[in-house]
């Protein structure tokens, strides 16, 4: 019984080690890439459609005099806190697809990020 448990622990440990290794390599590969900016002003996201490659970090900066949020349409993929003037929020897109997002305070503000 004891022996079995130690085997499981060993396996878990190995898995963690492997995961950490992967994480380190991904990080090393993407460090040079600069974040792509989306400007929030006048109750709009600009550009309304942003196309990036997988692995790109997108940074939203609120230049409006009213707070806004950046929330994915499913409300779970990404979700910022309320961004006051000059606050920013970043999210790294790893999987290709079309990500529609909106401001949960002013839901008429809708835009998207296309990840290739």
């Amino acid at each position, binding site marked *: 019984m004891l022996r079995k448990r130690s085997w499981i622990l060993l396996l878990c440990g190995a898995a963690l080690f492997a995961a950490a290794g992967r994480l380190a390599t991904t990080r090393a590969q993407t460090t040079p890439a600069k974040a792509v900016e989306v400007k929030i002003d*006048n*109750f*709009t996201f600009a550009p309304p459609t942003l196309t990036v490659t997988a692995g790109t970090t997108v940074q939203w900066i609120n230049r*409006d*005099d*009213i*707070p806004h*949020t950046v*929330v994915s*349409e499913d*409300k779970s993929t990404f*979700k910022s*806190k*309320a961004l*006051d*003037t000059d606050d920013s929020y970043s999210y790294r897109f790893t999987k290709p697809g079309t990500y*529609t*997002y*909106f401001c*949960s*305070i*002013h*839901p*008429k503000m*809708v835009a998207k990020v296309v990840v290739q």
Partner: protein
Amino acid sequence: MARKAKDEIQIDHHHDGHHHDGIDRRGFLKCMAWAGTGTLCVMRGGVLKSFELGGFSKQDAAAAAKGELSFAQISDSHMGFNKPANTDVVSTLKAAVDKLNGLSSAPEFLLHTGDISHLSRPEEFDTVEQILKSAQVKEVFYVPGEHDVTDGDGKEYLSRYGKNTQGQAWHSFDKKGVHFVGLVNVMNLKAGGLGSLGTEQLDWMQKDLAALSASTPVVVFAHIPLWSVYPEWGWGTEDSAQALALLKRFGSVTVLNGHIHQTMQKVEGAITFHTAASTAFPQPQPGKADSPGPMKVPAEQLRALLGITDVNFVRGQQALAVVDSSLA
């Protein structure tokens, strides 16, 4: 400017602008004109009268004083806002409280129709509560604005104002024969959507109203307008028609909203809609700017565009008298 507005309104009253339904549409349109110059809009027996605050006659004042119930509405205090449109929202909220305390008949209670805070921060709510303590009213009732629930589910708001409420803080109460319903239409909004009440709240509302007789005066208050003011800017509630259908059988319904930072009125059958001014900053007229962002006006004009609403209920009259006054 203010004087001119008054004269125009008086001239309109000399006109025979009354329709078969007894509503003076010319006067009504004047009232809708967004000005915030201290115009009073008073509905009595289905006939609308407009006055400047100073032009309120002794008779009218006496009628208002005789009313069974008087309450006031303030809205959109946006505590924490500090941008050029108004760098001192504390002072303007205090001015609103002074205005309330100066009313000839003290309102029994206060309704705050949301956007108490600017960023849902505890210290912002604290400041408003502290300032409202100096208001000479027995109670303050709140509904949240979208700025009070920026996390999406309103944890901070619910921890403060959720007591004795249902669901996501909707609630109802009775005051001297008038039934009040506080609705929440700012939670869990969908991408591209408008304000939303949701089926759970509508079901509750149906049950809440079921026991009332059709002659009970009903006051509904919520942050985002329950009529389509300007959906392009999100100034409307997607399922408000369902709420209004529940109110159709009542003889006197008053709907009080905030959100659009300007006063506006509309009458549909027995339902009178009214939006209150903000105590913090004005917003542009629907579609008259690129976006609904804060309107910057010269400092000396600011207080004329901010305000409070005083509501009087006189039994036997068809509608409640709704009176707006500016902070200037």
